[in-house]
C-alpha cells in the first residue's frame, strides 16, 4: 500500500457522520411494514385454513344429510314391509284355525289314520324347512329391530317341531301346542304359504339397497349406537389466533386510524387471539350446547402523525374528544399499535355431523363481550403507552355482542379426552366505539382455535 492509500485510509478511519432523523423514521416504518407483511401472510394462511375447513364441514355435512335422508327412506321401506306382516299374520291366524280344525280331525281319527298324519307331518316338514330359511332371511333383514332372539327362538322351536312331527310323537306335538309353540311355528308356515313371491324376495332387495349407498368411510359407519352413549358433559380449554379487521369503510371509524391524518395508507387488517375455558353438554342425540369464559385481544398496527412526543395520551385525547386530526399539531408519521381487550361469554349450539372417534361439529351462537381496555402503544418504545377502559366518559362501549360461526374437527384420545381444531368466524353486531363517535364499522375475526376437552361422562 502506497503513501496515497495510507493517507486516505487514515483520513477516513474512525470517521463518523450523523444521518438525518428521517432515516430512523423510515427504518421504523419499513420494520413495521415488514412485520405487517409477515402477519398478513399468517392471516392469509389462517383464512385459507378456515375457509377450507368450512368447505370440508359443508361437504361432510351434505354427505351426512344425504346418508340420513337415504337411511330414512330405507326405514320407510322396511316399515312398509313390516306393515305387510300383520296381513300375513291375519292369514296365518286363519291358517292356524284351519290347522287346529285339521288337528281336531286328526285327534278324532287317532290310531286309525296314522298314515295320513305322517303324510301331513311330512308335508309340514318340508314347509318348515322352507320356513326356517325364510326366518333366517328375516333375521338378517330385521337385525336392528331387536327381534333377533325371538326369531332365533322361533327357528329352534320350529326345528324341534319338525323333528317331533317327523317322529310322529304326539305327546311332544301336544306339548308344543300347549306352549303355543305350535302356533308360532304355523305362523311362519302360513307366512310362507301366503306371501307372494315378490315379498319373499324383499329381503335380498334391501341388502342391495345398502350396497347402493355412497361410499362413506367405514370409520364413519360402524358402532354408531355405542359411541353416542358417551360424551354427555365435558369441559375444555381453548386458544385461538387469527386475523382481525375493524371492517371500516373509512379511517375515521377506527381508533388507531382516526388519529391518523388519513394520508398514510395504514394496514386495515390486524391480529386477534383469545383463550379461555368452555363447558359443554349434549342436549339431544346430535345437538350440544357450549358456554364459558374467554379473554379476547384484538390489535391493529397503524401510523399516526399527531404530535405526541413522550406519551400517547394526546392521541387518545384526540379520539375521546372526537377531534379531527387536522385540528391538532402534527409531526412525521410514526407507527402505533391499538389493542382492544375483552372478556367474552360465548353461548353456542352445535350440531354433530359425525360423532365418532373422529368428530365433526358445526357451532353457531352469540357472545357477550365486556370491554376491558384499549391500549395505544408505540412499537419503537419512544412514547409511553396509554390505556383507556370502558365507562361513561370512555369512547368505547362497555358491552358488545357478536355472532359466532365455527366448525369443529375433533379426534378422541382414549375415553376421556378429545382434541379439536376450530376454524371460525366472529362478527360484532356493533362497533367498538359508541355511536356518538361516528363509528359504523362492525369488526370481524377469522381465526383458528385449538381445544382440549375433558369428558366427564
Amino acid at each position, binding site marked *: *500500500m*502506497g*503513501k*496515497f*492509500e495510507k*493517507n*486516505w*485510509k*487514515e*483520513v*477516513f478511519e*474512525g*470517521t*463518523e*457522520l*450523523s*444521518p*438525518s432523523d*428521517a*432515516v*430512523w423514521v*423510515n*427504518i*421504523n416504518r*419499513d*420494520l413495521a411494514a*415488514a*412485520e405487517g407483511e409477515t402477519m398478513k401472510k399468517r392471516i392469509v394462511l389462517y383464512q385459507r385454513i378456515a375457509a377450507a375447513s368450512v368447505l370440508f364441514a359443508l361437504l361432510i355435512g351434505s354427505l351426512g344429510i344425504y346418508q340420513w335422508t337415504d337411511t330414512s327412506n330405507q326405514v320407510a321401506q322396511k316399515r312398509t314391509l313390516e306393515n305387510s306382516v300383520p296381513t300375513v299374520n291375519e292369514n296365518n291366524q286363519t291358517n292356524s284355525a284351519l290347522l287346529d280344525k285339521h288337528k281336531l280331525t286328526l285327534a278324532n281319527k287317532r290310531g286309525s289314520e296314522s298314515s295320513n298324519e305322517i303324510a301331513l307331518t311330512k308335508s309340514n316338514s318340508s314347509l318348515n324347512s322352507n320356513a326356517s330359511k325364510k326366518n333366517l332371511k328375516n333375521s338378517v333383514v330385521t337385525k336392528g329391530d331387536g327381534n333377533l332372539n325371538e326369531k332365533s327362538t322361533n327357528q329352534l322351536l320350529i326345528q324341534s317341531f319338525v323333528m317331533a312331527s317327523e317322529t310322529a310323537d304326539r305327546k311332544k306335538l301336544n306339548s308344543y301346542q300347549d306352549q303355543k309353540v305350535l302356533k308360532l311355528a304355523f305362523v311362519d308356515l302360513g307366512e310362507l304359504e301366503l306371501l307372494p313371491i315378490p315379498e319373499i324376495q324383499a329381503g335380498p332387495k334391501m341388502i342391495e339397497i345398502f350396497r347402493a349407498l355412497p361410499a362413506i368411510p367405514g370409520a364413519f359407519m360402524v358402532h354408531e349406537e355405542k359411541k353416542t352413549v358417551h360424551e354427555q358433559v365435558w369441559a375444555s380449554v381453548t386458544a385461538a389466533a387469527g386475523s382481525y379487521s375493524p371492517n371500516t369503510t373509512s379511517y375515521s371509524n377506527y381508533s388507531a386510524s382516526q388519529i391518523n391524518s388519513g394520508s398514510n395508507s395504514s394496514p386495515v387488517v390486524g391480529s386477534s387471539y383469545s383463550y379461555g375455558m368452555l363447558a359443554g353438554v349434549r342436549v339431544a342425540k346430535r345437538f350440544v350446547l357450549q358456554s364459558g369464559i374467554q379473554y379476547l385481544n384484538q390489535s391493529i398496527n397503524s401510523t399516526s402523525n399527531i404530535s405526541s412526543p413522550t406519551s400517547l395520551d394526546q392521541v387518545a385525547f384526540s379520539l375521546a374528544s372526537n377531534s379531527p386530526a387536522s385540528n391538532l399539531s402534527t409531526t412525521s408519521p410514526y407507527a402505533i399499535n391499538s389493542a382492544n381487550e375483552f372478556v367474552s361469554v360465548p353461548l353456542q349450539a352445535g350440531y354433530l355431523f359425525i360423532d365418532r372417534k373422529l368428530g365433526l361439529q358445526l357451532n353457531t351462537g352469540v357472545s357477550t363481550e365486556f370491554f376491558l381496555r384499549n391500549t395505544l402503544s408505540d*412499537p*419503537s*418504545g*419512544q412514547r409511553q403507552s396509554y390505556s383507556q377502559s370502558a365507562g361513561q366518559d370512555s369512547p368505547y362501549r362497555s358491552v358488545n355482542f357478536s355472532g359466532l360461526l365455527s366448525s369443529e374437527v375433533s379426534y378422541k384420545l382414549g375415553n376421556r379426552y378429545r382434541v379439536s381444531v376450530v376454524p371460525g368466524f366472529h362478527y360484532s353486531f356493533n362497533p367498538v366505539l359508541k355511536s356518538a363517535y361516528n363509528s359504523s364499522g362492525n369488526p370481524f375475526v377469522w381465526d383458528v382455535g385449538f381445544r382440549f376437552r375433558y369428558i366427564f361422562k
Partner: protein
Amino acid sequence: MLGEKELISGCAKGERTAQRMLYERHCRRLMAVCSRYAKSMPEAEDILQEGFMKIFSSLKTFRYESKLDTWMTRIMINTALNHQRQKLYLLPMVDVEDAGLREDEKISLSDFHLSELIAIVQQLPDGCRVVFNLFAIEGFGHKEIADMLGISEGTSKSQYNRAKSLLRAKLETVKVKYGKV
C-alpha cells in the same frame, strides 16, 4: 445499557427498542462508510436505511465468527455496491491509461475538512469511486475487486489510477480556490 449479545438477541426477536439502540450505536460510523460510496448525502442515507434493514433481517444468522462492527460494515458495503451496480452496468468501466501519478504527494489531506474530502470522493465517476473505496480504504486487492464487481483485474487497476488522478486534480483545485497552500 444492553450488552452486545443482549442487543443482538433483542434485535433478532424483533424488539424495536433493541433495534433502535443498535441503530443509534452504529449509524454515524456506517453513515461515513455509505457517504464514501454514494454520490450524494441523500443517496448515502438511502443506502444506510437499506443496509440497516438487511442487518435487522440477517441478525438471526449472525454467528459471532467475526466482530459485529466488521459484519455490519461488510453488509453496508455490499448494499452500497448493489446500489451502485446498476449504474456500473449503465456506464461500463473501461480501461483507462495510467495517469502516471507521482508518489511524492505534496498535498496533505490534513489541510482539508472531512466533509470536503467526502465531497471530493463523491464527485468521482461511479466506477472510479467504487474501486477507489474498495482498494484504498477497505484494502481489497484488484483481483478481489474484479471478482466482486464482475470486471477484469486490468479494469479495476485502470479505474483506480483514474480515480487517483481525478482526486489529485480535485484536491489541487480546492487548495487553490480556498488558499490552502
